[in-house]
């Protein structure tokens, strides 16, 4: 051990043993430092800042040699109080907050929240067909982009950098579509109670069709690169094993549950937004390990492409149809249009409220300042997010703001499986197991 003390990574003696702060390139001093200790047990505090922990996740690992004897998670480093903030904003503004929770699948956060609000408003049957189809289209595109990140980061963490670069390359294409349709790459706040914020822009359907054609060429690349790759398989197969009984006890849903072979998918079992009218298959696998979950994610991207294709065909026949409920007491009043000075309220709308209808002006003013009231009660309408069951428990006391909004985020629940997936395995497999859960800390901590 070197006698010099590193000012930024000091060693210390504590009642629990000697503490080392590992900063890189100092492995020799750590090894020589612990070699004279009697027992071989090392507690490694990994994170919260660590490239392989999918964001600010902290792992506390107890190691004997390279074997993990105990693994625990420390979370909360990304807690921003979104649920509490939503209680001080109107129901529509709530969308702007919840879209930032699980930042890889923003549309799902918006969707489950809006479905809950719509159920309380009792307007579930009044949502226009075009809004439903656009929601499905956006969600399935989002599933592709989210699974691409899951595969890309998972690959990066085991050293497969090409998987990362091509994964993010394709994800960028999806984000371009989001930008075209909603105006933003992330944090869209596009799905609103009652429908969606805007109609499809001109030319969007053609761009989505081009994307589908391109993805059909690109998706096989993942299979060719990974499916039979001996290094890839050696790192993934048998790692992060969790059987069906374990999944149900721990409340695990999504690809992790489906990798046990159990075909549970809320899009089939409790269809929402018209999913019962689309043709697609629930993907399962016969090995409940990291490899099975990888294969499920790739297969689900194919299924999502199928749904996107069907949604595009439906949208082609719905040109000019409304995308927001007709009820003027709920529908967001402003209608955006591109003017000579950028995007703003359409001149038609300004003319309508300023020159034609006093009631329309009152509705506009009241909705924008006060918002609408939601009848008292509580609702829970879950959706199948890329990571599993995502549900918003929405409580209203009859006011203009949510009384309570709580999100059951699948990352939060699934992360509980970290210890059962990693204990008894190698320390390098912890990373693979967590990558196969695909937790997004924005959703875990909210």
């Amino acid at each position: 051990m070197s006698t010099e003390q590193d000012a930024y990574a000091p060693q210390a003696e504590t009642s629990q043993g000697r503490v080392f702060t590992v900063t890189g390139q100092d492995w020799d001093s750590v090894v020589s430092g612990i070699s004279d200790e009697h027992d071989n047990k090392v507690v490694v505090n990994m994170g919260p800042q660590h490239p392989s922990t999918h964001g600010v996740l902290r792992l506390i690992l107890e190691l004997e040699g390279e074997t993990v004897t105990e693994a625990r998670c420390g979370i909360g480093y990304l807690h921003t109080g979104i649920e509490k903030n939503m209680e001080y904003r109107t129901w529509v503004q709530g969308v702007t907050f919840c879209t930032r929770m699980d930042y890889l699948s923003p549309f799902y956060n918006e969707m489950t929240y809006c479905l809950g609000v719509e159920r309380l408003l009792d307007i579930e049957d009044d949502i226009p067909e075009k809004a439903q189809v656009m929601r499905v289209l956006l969600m399935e595109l989002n599933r592709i982009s989210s699974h691409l990140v899951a595969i890309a980061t998972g690959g990066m963490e085991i050293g497969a950098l090409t998987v990362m670069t091509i994964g993010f390359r394709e994800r960028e294409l999806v984000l371009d579509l989001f930008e075209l349709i909603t105006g933003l790459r992330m944090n869209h706040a596009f799905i609103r109670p009652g429908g969606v914020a805007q109609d499809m822009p001109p030319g969007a359907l053609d761009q989505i069709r081009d994307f589908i054609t391109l993805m059909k060429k690109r998706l096989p690349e993942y299979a060719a690169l990974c499916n039979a790759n001996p290094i890839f398989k050696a790192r993934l197969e048998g790692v992060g094993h969790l059987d069906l009984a374990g999944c149900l006890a721990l409340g695990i849903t999504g690809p992790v549950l489906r990798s046990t072979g159990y075909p549970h998918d809320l899009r089939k079992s409790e269809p929402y937004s018209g999913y019962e009218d689309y043709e697609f298959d629930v993907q399962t696998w016969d090995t409940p390990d990291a490899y099975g979950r990888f294969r499920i994610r790739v297969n689900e991207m194919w299924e999502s492409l199928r749904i996107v294709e069907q949604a595009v065909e439906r949208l082609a026949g719905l040109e000019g149809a409304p995308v927001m409920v007709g009820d003027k007491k709920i529908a967001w009043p402003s209608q955006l249009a591109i003017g000579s000075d950028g995007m703003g309220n359409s001149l038609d709308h300004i003319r309508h409220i300023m020159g034609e209808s006093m009631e329309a002006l009152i509705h506009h003013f009241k909705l924008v300042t006060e918002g609408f009231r939601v009848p008292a009660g509580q609702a829970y309408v879950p959706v199948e997010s890329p990571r599993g069951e995502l549900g918003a428990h929405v409580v209203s006391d009859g006011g203009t703001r949510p009384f309570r909004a709580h999100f059951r985020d699948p990352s939060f629940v699934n992360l509980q499986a970290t210890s059962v997936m990693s204990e008894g395995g190698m320390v390098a497999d912890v990373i693979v197991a967590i990558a196969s859960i695909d937790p997004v800390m924005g959703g875990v901590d909210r």
Partner: protein
Amino acid sequence: MAGDRPDFTTGPLTEPGTDVDATDGMPENVPDDGTGEQIGRREGMFGVRGTGDTSGYGGLTRPVEMPGPSQPPYGGWMDDVATALFEASRSAGIEHAVERVVVHRGEITFHVRREDLVEVARLLRDDEKLRFELLSGASGVHYPDDAGRELHVVYHLLSLTHNRRIRLEVTAPDADPRVPSVVATYPTADWHEREVFDFFGVVFDGHPSLTRIQMPDDWPGHPQRKDYPLGGIPVEYKGGSIPPPDQRRSYN
């Protein structure tokens, strides 16, 4: 008029003279049907009290009511679940476990006495006709004006066998914020209960390690309670500061 409108409008604008009356559905115009479960009162319309209220709405007082108890038949599969649960709890000797049943917007809620929660959860999971294998989640709600039942813990259960969803609700007073833990039946409740403890201060008896999960370990208070003090933002303008969101003037 329709022809020259751009494509991005979100629906047809109403023709002049056909608009809905803007005062329809205003709270002062909606009669109280008196069937709900009162949890508080709403006063005024703008969150301003006393002499500062120049709105003219200061005298408006309305009860805040959650949906009240429902009577059978509840409709469809809900009757099967309710019957099976009542039968099972009778044979387990806890026939008064369910205080009331609320059916609202197609969702069924069983309000369970907190001392019977553990037993009811076990019956719901194991009974042949119930089989609620998956606990979706648990969340807390704080009703500061619901005297004696201020803290509610809400559980969402899913039966994969029968494809049904129910909700359990237990309450605890602020003075004795204790609810038994269901971790022994549903291990997934571990983190959910820690979160409810962290944010609402509900103590789950029998939880293996009830510690804070989102907030730092030494954090004072439970942030999602309605009485948790919110901070204002100091602004450097003649010593003024923005009041916390719950004290700002806003619609209520």
